[in-house]
């Protein structure tokens, strides 16, 4: 490994370094403000490095394990941005927790590092490493506060995620048995897909989603919905770009999984009365929409692949941003010992907290795909990809599902606009500043991308090409 390769790994190492500083600091003197400051500065430095020095990184591949192409760099930066958002929303949530708070921050940074490794991995070893760093820190995060719903969700996630990791490992082993190496190839693909689909929560591997989303502390749910999903999504695209998927059966499976996810996700979301559960099922449906894009890869070689990848990336980006925003709102009204996730809790939010209700509305509209928000651009791009490929039946299913999806988003908005009589949970009078910053960042990103998506699309198109350069 030479210096330029080492240089290209700095974005990853910085986060790791931050964690290494945080651990002794937490051990030496417990000070939440200090730990929070260290973790946010780490992330901000990481972001700044990628922003300023990112263009200096010339090597495409740092060692056998990592690719540090434009795509990896972008997503390392993007996950750093999301991690910043998660950190900012969890500040107030954690503040009054009587136990140890610093480890929470360490685990979030660790999970983010796992996501970054996933985005840059070019080898099954680094892939598995990244995935496990991500998962293991999630086990800790979900159960962090040690109370009933958290523990239950944590154990559920632990058992199911380990099972899926076993499948994944089996797939990797098959790949190794065929190739004698751990590079990406088409062997063992079904088993690897099982592992990935589990993480993405696609039907039929979705059963954990609603329970974990509901049981996990709100900022952790935000983390799962944004960084965890995003990292696996990026990896999936990388894997598809590298591995050969020439079996007809795989495509049929993807189509079935996509359709089933859309229908199951939307149908189940209709029946829920808990916002976290609604959003969990809606996330299943959204990943289903993304799988539609993956299905369209079927008909195209590299050129179409670049185009479709950029659409998928765009959707992934706006979806994670929006999700972080929505869960940010839920975090604003929740504390470590009390989650405010029931739909009834939000009755009359418009009249009591107009600002955060506005935020929430815009995030929900983005999820529903209304114009002026980034969600619309995402839907627009999926539609255009579908028409471009003349995949009419899939488009029809997509339209039907979008309409069903509207119902439960509108339901949340309607509830917020109702009169509130005798609310039980007292609302905080004003939103804490860190949270407001985080929500503001997400909101402005969503609105900006909704009006001028071209700048980001341009970038994405550029780095999608690097995905296909072998």
């Amino acid at each position: 490994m030479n210096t330029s390769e080492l240089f290209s790994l700095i974005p990853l190492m910085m986060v790791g370094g931050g964690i290494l500083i945080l651990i002794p600091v937490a051990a030496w003197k417990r000070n939440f403000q200090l730990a929070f400051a260290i973790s946010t500065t780490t992330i901000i430095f990481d972001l700044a490095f990628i922003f300023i020095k990112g263009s200096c990184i010339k090597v495409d591949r740092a060692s056998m394990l990592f690719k540090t192409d434009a795509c990896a760099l972008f997503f390392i930066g993007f996950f750093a941005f999301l991690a910043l958002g998660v950190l900012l929303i969890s500040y107030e949530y954690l503040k009054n927790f009587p136990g140890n708070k610093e480890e929470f921050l360490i685990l979030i940074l660790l999970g983010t590092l796992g996501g970054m490794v996933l985005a840059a991995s070019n080898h099954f070893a680094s892939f598995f490493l990244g995935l496990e760093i991500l998962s293991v820190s999630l086990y800790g995060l979900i159960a962090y506060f040690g109370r009933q719903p958290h523990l239950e969700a944590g154990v559920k996630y632990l058992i199911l995620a380990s099972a899926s990791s076993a499948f994944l490992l089996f797939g990797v082993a098959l790949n190794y048995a065929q190739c004698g190496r751990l590079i990406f190839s088409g062997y063992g693909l079904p088993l690897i897909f099982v592992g990935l689909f589990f993480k993405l929560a696609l039907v039929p591997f979705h059963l954990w989603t609603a329970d974990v989303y509901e049981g996990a502390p709100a900022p952790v749910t935000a983390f799962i919905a944004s960084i965890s999903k995003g990292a696996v999504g990026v990896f999936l695209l990388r894997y598809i770009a590298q591995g050969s998927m020439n079996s007809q059966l795989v495509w049929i499976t993807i189509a079935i999984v996509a359709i089933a996810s859309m229908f199951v996700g939307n149908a189940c979301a209709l029946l829920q009365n808990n916002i976290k559960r609604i959003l969990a099922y809606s996330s299943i449906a959204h990943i289903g929409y993304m799988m539609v894009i993956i299905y369209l890869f079927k008909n195209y070689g590299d050129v179409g692949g670049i185009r479709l990848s950029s659409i998928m990336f765009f959707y992934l980006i706006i979806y994670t941003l929006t999700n972080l925003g929505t869960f940010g709102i839920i975090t604003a009204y929740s504390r470590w010992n009390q989650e405010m996730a029931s739909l009834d809790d939000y009755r009359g939010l418009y009249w009591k907290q107009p600002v955060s209700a506005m935020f929430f509305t815009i995030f929900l509209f983005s999820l529903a795909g209304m114009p002026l928000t980034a969600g619309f651009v995402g839907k627009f791009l999926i539609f255009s990809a579908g028409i471009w490929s003349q995949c009419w039946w899939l488009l029809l299913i997509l339209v039907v599902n979008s309409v069903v999806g509207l119902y439960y988003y509108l339901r949340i908005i309607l509830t917020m606009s109702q009169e509130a009589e005798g609310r039980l949970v007292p609302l905080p009078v004003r939103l804490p500043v860190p949270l407001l910053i985080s929500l503001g960042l997400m909101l402005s990103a969503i609105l900006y991308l909704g009006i001028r998506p071209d700048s980001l699309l341009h970038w994405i198109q550029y780095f999608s090409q690097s995905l296909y350069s072998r």
Partner: protein
Amino acid sequence: MILFWIVIIPFIGAVLSWFSAAKHPLSARWIAIVALGIDLILALSLAKNMMGPPHPQSTASLWAAEISWDWIPQAGLHFHLAIDGLSMVLVLLTLILGIAAVVASWSEIKDRLGFFLFNLLAILSGILGVFLAMDLILFYFCWELMLIPMYFLIAIWGHENRRYAAMKFFIFTQAGSLFLLLAILGLYFLHGHFSGNYSFEYQDLLNTPNQWPYSLLFMLGFLIAFAVKLPIFPFHPWLPDAHTEAPTGGSIILAGLLLKTGAYGMLRFVLPFFPQDVQLMAPLIFVLAAIGIIYGAIMAFAQSDLKKLVAFSSVSHMGFVLLGIFAGNEIALNGALLQIVCHGISTGALFFLVGALQERLHTRDLNSMGGLWPVIPRLSALTLFFALASLGLPGLGNFLAEFLVLLGSYIVTPIITIIASIGLVYAAVYSLRIVQQAFHGKPKGTPMISDLYNREAIILGLLISIILFLGVYPQPVMNLVAPTLQQIRIKPVDATSPLEPAIIVKRDVLVIKDHS
């Protein structure tokens, strides 16, 4: 630039009145009125230019004013607004009814006035955008943007069953819009594929080559979206609920303007984009239009809820618009356009009056009204006037509109026209029922209630004068829209078709003569 201001001024007014409402409710209402007034003056000044001496047939564009800014040029997206006669008429209608809606909610809305006015004016901005946008994605944006505030308007300030109605309204229209989006994208790729120029521009897409199976598909996409808005018969169930549950101002905008965006879309996009497929689909549409006319009228007669009655009458009247549009010759199109304007005004006014009645009586139930004429003579007389307008009394705009539609469509489809004209009889039945049951007969324990206030009377007087004017002398409006209708009318497939000469002969017979 003036077009940009026309679209944006209501929105500026919306924001201003939102912020001022908390401290000065009255000033917020006036800000709304003034913003719309300024907009109206701007639009009228533009209209005056357009009404000027007919300039020689220049090959220059149809538009009287136009702006086009780059938005996302790589994808062929532009911020392109343009106005021609058709758009102008609808813009004027929008602004007048917008003012009426603000006045109608003057004393009705007291809670959360700021947000109410914001939504109301934001809808108007969206509607103006719909009428002016010449880039299809911009059109779609505005199409959606008028939806969201309308949803809030119904959901927050509506009557008893408002949540259900708001949800139904949103889901129906949004489902339609998604098909519209698909169709727009399809057209975009089809046009781009053949010409190499990927663009969402209206003028570009007009020249899309006709690829049979696709054009039919895309036309259906457009048609479904507009059919939900208009509404065409099987797509109408959202309408009675939404109109009934909305607050008065919302009902006026729904009936007077939102339905018209559907008609506008058909005129502007469906007819010119897919001339062949329109002719293919026309027989089916005629049947649906006739069903809509008769069904709406019968349902209207069956209602005892006054608002629902007026709402179903809209279904019936919109059937005439549909018939006129798809008959496609100039007479029918003129009739359809007049019907759009006159129905917008007369039904808007009826909703205004029903709202005023409800505010005074706290009920909309016809059965619990009676003998109101001596108590509130002004309100009663005005209701009679608009009921007569709605049933198509000769001399009023609605009569001329429906007459022209029937005349034009008779050439194309005589049987359907005959069935449709039965709707006129029904219209008389349900319209007069309003007047008879509410204002005549024995008083039913009517409390002392106040008659129309001056501000209400003034705005209704304005609407009356427009209806009268259009009924007696519709020529200015027809001149305004003539060039556009010329372009979009359905041209016969071949010259030997009996369609064209018949129209020409009829046109000479008709009263619609130019400056002679």
